[in-house]
C-alpha cells in the first residue's frame, strides 16, 4: 500500500501542493485537474524524482527514498514528455530500459516481445521509431513502464495527443494492465478516466479536493445540473456547462445553486460537469 502523509511541496516560496494525504491500494486512480494544478509534481514525488518539502511517502510502511533501488524496482513510469530514441527500434529501446531496470537479457527479450504484442506493435518492433505516430510512441511508453511488472504503474498524461480511436484502445489497455496493481494516471481529459478509474483525485488551490469514486464525485453536484433550450428564462445566477445544437435550437446545460426544475429539466451530472463546476474560476 502506498501512503502519502501530509505531503507538501514548495518550489521556493511557491507552494505547488499543500498537505496532501492519500492512500493507494490496488486499482486505477485518475488524477483529474487543470493545467498547473500539481499533477506532475505529485507524480515526480511518487517516482522519487523530487522530494516532499514536508510530510512523507510510504510504501508498506517504509519511506520510499530509503527503499532506494528496491522501490524503483516496483514502479513503472511514463513521463509526461516521454522522450524516445528516434534512431532505435522499439525492441532495442525496450531492451535498453529493461537492462537499466536490472532485468537479465533472456528475460528481457521474452518480456519485450510479450509487451509489444500486448500494445499491438509486434509487426513494427524492429522499425525505427522516428516514423511512429504519437499514439504508437505512447504505446511504446506504456510497454516500457510495464517491463518490470510493476506493482505501481504511474502514467503522466498518457493520452495526450491521442486520437479518439487510440484513446479507446488505451482505456482497454489500462483495464487489462490494472489487475493486481496500483495504476495512477493524470489527465485533464475527463472521458479518459470516466470509465476506467475506480477513484478520481482532484486538486484545487493546490490542496486535495476530492478522492472518491466517479459516481460519488458526481453525486456532489446532484440536483444542481439542468438542461434547457431557453436559457434566457433563467433569472437566477447560473453557470453554463455545455451548449449544443439540437434540431435548430441551442440546448444549454447549466449548473445552478437554486432549484430550476420548474423552468428546465434536471440532468444527471457527469464527471465533466463536476470538472467544469469545480474549476469554474480557472476556466474562462
Amino acid at each position, binding site marked *: 500500500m502506498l501512503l502519502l502523509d501530509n505531503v507538501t511541496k514548495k518550489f521556493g516560496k511557491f507552494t505547488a501542493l499543500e498537505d496532501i494525504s492519500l492512500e493507494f491500494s490496488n486499482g486505477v486512480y485518475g488524477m483529474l485537474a487543470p493545467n498547473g494544478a500539481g499533477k506532475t509534481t505529485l507524480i*515526480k514525488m511518487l517516482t522519487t524524482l523530487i522530494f516532499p518539502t514536508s510530510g512523507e511517502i510510504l510504501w508498506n510502511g517504509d519511506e520510499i527514498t530509503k527503499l532506494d*533501488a528496491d522501490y524503483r524496482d516496483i514502479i513503472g513510469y511514463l513521463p509526461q514528455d516521454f522522450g524516445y530514441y528516434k534512431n532505435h527500434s522499439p525492441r532495442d529501446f525496450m531492451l535498453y530500459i529493461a*537492462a537499466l531496470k536490472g532485468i537479465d537479457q533472456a528475460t528481457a527479450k521474452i518480456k519485450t516481445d510479450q509487451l509489444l504484442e500486448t500494445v499491438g506493435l509486434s509487426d513494427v518492433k524492429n522499425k525505427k521509431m522516428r516514423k511512429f505516430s504519437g499514439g504508437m510512441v505512447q504505446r511504446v511508453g506504456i510497454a516500457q513502464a510495464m517491463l518490470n511488472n510493476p506493482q505501481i504503474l504511474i502514467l503522466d498524461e498518457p493520452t495526450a495527443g491521442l486520437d479518439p480511436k487510440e484513446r479507446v484502445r488505451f482505456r482497454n489497455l489500462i483495464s487489462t494492465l490494472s489487475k493486481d496493481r496500483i495504476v495512477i494516471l493524470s489527465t485533464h481529459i475527463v472521458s479518459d478516466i470516466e470509465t476506467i478509474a475506480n477513484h478520481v483525485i482532484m486538486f484545487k488551490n493546490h490542496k486535495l479536493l476530492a478522492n472518491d469514486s466517479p459516481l460519488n464525485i458526481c453525486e456532489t453536484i446532484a440536483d444542481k445540473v439542468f438542461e434547457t433550450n431557453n436559457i434566457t428564462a433563467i433569472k437566477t445566477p447560473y453557470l453554463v456547462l455545455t451548449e449544443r445544437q439540437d434540431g435548430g435550437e441551442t440546448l444549454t446545460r447549466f449548473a445552478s445553486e437554486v432549484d430550476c426544475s420548474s423552468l428546465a429539466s434536471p440532468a444527471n451530472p457527469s464527471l465533466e460537469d463536476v470538472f467544469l463546476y469545480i474549476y469554474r474560476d480557472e476556466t474562462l
Partner: protein
Amino acid sequence: MVDKDKSIEFILSQGFTRPPSFYVKVAKMHGILGWRFIFWDFSYSFIFLLVTLAGVVFLLRHAPVYEFPYSVAAGFSPILFLLITLFTEINERTCNLYQLKQTCRYTSRQVTALRSMYYSVVGVGFAVLVAAISTDGAAQFFRVLPLCLGGLFLCAAVELLVIRLSRSKFAIAATSAAWLAVNLSMPMTLGVRWEALLSGTPLLLAVAFPVAAAAAFIYQTNKMLMEENSHAIA
C-alpha cells in the same frame, strides 16, 4: 543460552543482508548492462571526441612541447577524460529520457559512475601517450608520468564531485574549462618558473600525488554508485 543463540543469529542475518560491496555491485551492473548499454547512443559524442582529440594531438605535435614538457604533459593528460565525460554527460542530461532513467533500478547517475571507471582506464592510456609524446628519454618520461596521472585523477575526482552535486550541465563544462584555463594561463604567465615548479617536485610528493588523487577518484565513484537519493533531479 537461547538468548545468546538468538543474538548470534541476529548478527549473522545482519551480516548477510548487508548492502553489496562496491565490487559486487559493479560486477552485477556490468553483467546486466553489458558494453552496449553502458555506452548506449553515444555515437555522436564519440565522433565529436575523435575530432577534438585529433586537434589536440595535432597541437601537441606542432607546439614547442620540448621546452615545457612538464607543463604540457600535466595540462593535456586529463583532456581525454574531461572531454569524453563532458560529451556523454551533456548527451545524457539533454536527452529527454533522463528522468525516466532516474527512476530505473540503475539510475543515470550510477551508470555514469560505472562509465567513468572505464573512461579513467582509457584516460590512463592517453596520459601515458601524452607523457611519451612530450618527453625526451625514459628518465624524463617516468618523472613526468606521475604528474600526468595525478592530474588525470584529480580532474576525474573533481568532475565526478561536480556531477554528483550539481544539476546543471554547464557546471560540468565549467570544470573542464577551468582546468584548461589554469593549465594554459600558468605556463603562459609564469613560463619557465611554472615549468621549474613542476619539474622540481620532490620525488616522494610526485608519487604521492597520483596515489592520493586516484583514491579521491575511487571515493567519488563509490559514492556515486552507492549513495541513496542521488537519483533526484531537484
